[in-house]
C-alpha cells in the first residue's frame, strides 16, 4: 500500500473517533422512557428527568434533521426555528462587535503611535479589561433600559479589549525602518498610516479581531440566557426549562458549529494579511 498523506490519515482517524464516540454514547444510554410513562412522583422529584433526560445520539441526529430541514419557521415567541434563533444571536454579536471595532481600531492606532496616550490610557484598560462582561449587565439594563441593546452593549464591551490592545501593540511594534521608508518618501501622516503602519500591523490586529469574535460568541450565549426573548442562548435555556435535552444537545452543537465558522472567517482574513519578513 502506498503512503497516504497526513491529511487523509487524519481525516480517517477523525471519522473513526466520531463514530466510536457516538457508538459509545448510544450504548451507555439506557432505552429512554417516554415522558408519559413517568409517574407523577418521578416527575415531581425530577428523578425522571435525570434518567430519561440524556438522549442517545440517534435522537439528537433526528432532532437535527428535523430542525435543519426547516430552520426558519416562526410559531410564536416560544417556538422559533433554530435558524432564526442563531440569526438573532449573530446579529447581536455583529452589531456589538462592529461598534467595538470602529472604536478599538482607531483608538488602538492612536495609543500605539503615541507613548503618552499609551501611558495615560493603560491604567483604565488594565482595570476594565478583566471585568467579566456579564458583570456589566445589570448596569447596562438599568442605564439603557432595553434588553436588546444591553445584550449588544455587553458584546461591545467584551470584544473591545483584545482588538484595542492588539492594535496598539501591533502599531507600536512596527519596525522603525519601515516608518523611516515612509518618512524618506515624504508620505503624509495619513498615507503612512494606511500604506505602511496598517499593513505592517495588520496580522496583529486581525489576531485581536479573531480573539474578540471568539469571546463575543462565548458571551452572547450567556447574555441571552439572562435577557431572554430570542437568540440561541435563550433557546438553550428555554429547552432546558422544557426538559427537552435533545434540543439542548443539538443547540450546543450548533453553537460550536457557528463559533467555528466565525473563527474560520477570520482565519481566512488572517491568511490574507499575513506576511513574512
Amino acid at each position: 500500500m502506498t503512503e497516504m498523506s497526513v491529511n487523509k490519515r487524519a481525516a480517517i482517524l477523525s471519522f473513526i473517533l466520531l463514530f466510536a464516540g457516538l457508538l459509545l454514547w448510544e450504548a451507555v444510554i439506557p432505552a429512554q422512557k417516554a415522558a408519559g410513562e413517568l409517574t407523577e412522583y418521578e416527575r415531581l422529584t425530577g428523578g425522571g428527568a435525570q434518567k430519561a433526560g440524556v438522549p442517545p445520539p440517534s435522537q439528537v441526529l433526528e432532532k437535527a434533521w428535523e430542525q435543519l430541514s426547516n430552520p426558519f419557521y416562526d410559531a410564536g415567541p416560544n417556538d422559533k426555528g433554530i435558524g432564526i434563533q442563531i440569526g438573532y444571536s449573530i446579529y447581536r454579536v455583529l452589531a456589538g462587535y462592529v461598534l467595538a471595532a470602529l472604536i478599538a481600531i482607531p483608538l488602538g492606532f492612536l495609543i500605539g503611535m503615541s507613548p503618552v496616550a499609551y501611558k495615560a490610557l493603560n491604567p483604565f484598560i488594565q482595570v476594565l479589561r478583566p471585568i467579566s462582561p456579564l458583570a456589566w449587565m445589570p448596569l447596562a439594563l438599568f442605564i439603557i433600559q432595553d434588553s436588546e441593546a444591553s445584550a449588544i452593549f455587553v458584546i461591545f464591551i467584551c470584544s473591545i479589549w483584545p482588538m484595542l490592545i492588539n492594535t496598539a501593540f501591533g502599531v507600536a511594534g512596527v519596525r522603525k525602518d519601515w516608518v523611516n521608508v515612509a518618512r524618506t518618501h515624504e508620505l503624509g501622516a495619513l498615507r503612512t498610516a494606511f500604506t505602511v503602519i496598517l499593513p505592517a500591523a495588520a496580522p496583529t490586529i486581525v489576531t485581536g479581531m479573531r480573539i474578540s469574535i471568539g469571546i463575543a460568541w462565548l458571551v452572547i450565549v450567556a447574555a441571552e440566557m439572562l435577557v431572554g426573548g430570542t437568540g440561541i442562548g435563550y433557546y438553550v435555556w428555554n429547552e432546558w426549562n422544557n426538559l427537552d435535552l435533545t434540543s439542548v444537545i443539538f443547540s450546543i452543537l450548533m453553537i460550536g458549529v457557528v463559533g467555528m465558522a466565525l473563527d474560520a472567517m477570520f482565519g481566512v482574513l488572517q491568511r490574507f494579511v499575513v506576511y513574512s519578513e
Partner: protein
Amino acid sequence: MTTPFLSVERLSQRYPDGEGGTTTIFENASFGIERGEFVVILGHSGCGKSTIMNILAGLAEASEGVVIMDGKEVSGPSLDRGVVFQNYSLLPWLSALKNVTFAVAARYPDWSKDQVLSHSKKHLEMVGLSADVFNRKPSQLSGGMRQRVSIARAFSISPKLLLLDEPFGALDALTRGTIQDELLKVWAGTNQTVFMITHDIDEAILLADRILLMSNGPYARVAESVEITIPRPRNRIEIVEHPNYYAIRNHLVQFLGKRSKELAGPTDAAENRPVTVRIDKTAPAAPSPKKLAV
C-alpha cells in the same frame, strides 16, 4: 573656497551616557561632497557612521552643527535624499515591483499608472532582475535580490543625494561582488551623488571617488579624505593591477589598523576637517616605482 554641493558644518552628536553625563560620539566634524561624487566612509564599528548618515538623511538631528545641501539646510527627511538601509528597507507585504512603484508614485505624483509601472520595471531590469521575480514578495527573494530591489528603488526616484548604509553588509562575498558591479553600472549612467558606508576596504576602493576615514570614537573625527586615483570604468579583476591600488589599500589598512586608535580622543580644534590624501604612483612628479612591492 566655493561651497560644495553638500556641506557638513561642525556637526556634533552627543548622547546621554546613562550616568547623568553625556558621551560625545563626534565633535565639530566638517566635510563636503561635490555633485556627482561617490564618497565612501570607512571607520570602526561604533564610531558614528550611521549616525552621520541618519543626520544627512534628516532622520535624526545633530546635537550641534548643520548640513547644507544644494544651498538649503537639511531638516527632516525628503525625497531629495534617498536611503538604502542595511536590512529591512523593503516593505515585506509588497511585491518587489510594488516596493518600487510605491517610491516612484510618491516621487512623481502626477504620473499615470502606466508611467509609474514602466519606470519601475525599467529600474528593476537595470539592476539585473528579470520579470519573473517582479511579483515575488521580499521573503521569496534571496538576500542579493532584495538589495537589488532596494537599489532599484533608490535610483528610481533620482534623489539629489543617495545614502547607502552598509548595503551589502549581509551578503556573501560572491553576491557582493556581482551587486557591486551592478551598482557601478547603474551609477555610471547617472550623475548621482552617493554617500555610502561600508566595512569592506576593497569595496570602498572599487566604488569610491573619495574615501573618508573616521577615527575611533568617542570623539571620533573624519580624519582623512583619501582620493582614489584609479580611473573609471573600474572592474574588480583589473583594478588590483593598477599601480595605485595597493598603495591606497595599504594606506587604508594602516589607518584602520593603527592610526584610527592613535587619533582617538578630543581635540581643541574648533573645526575638524579631514586632511586630503592623494596617493598617485603614476603621476610624473612622484618617484614612480615601476612595480609596487606587495
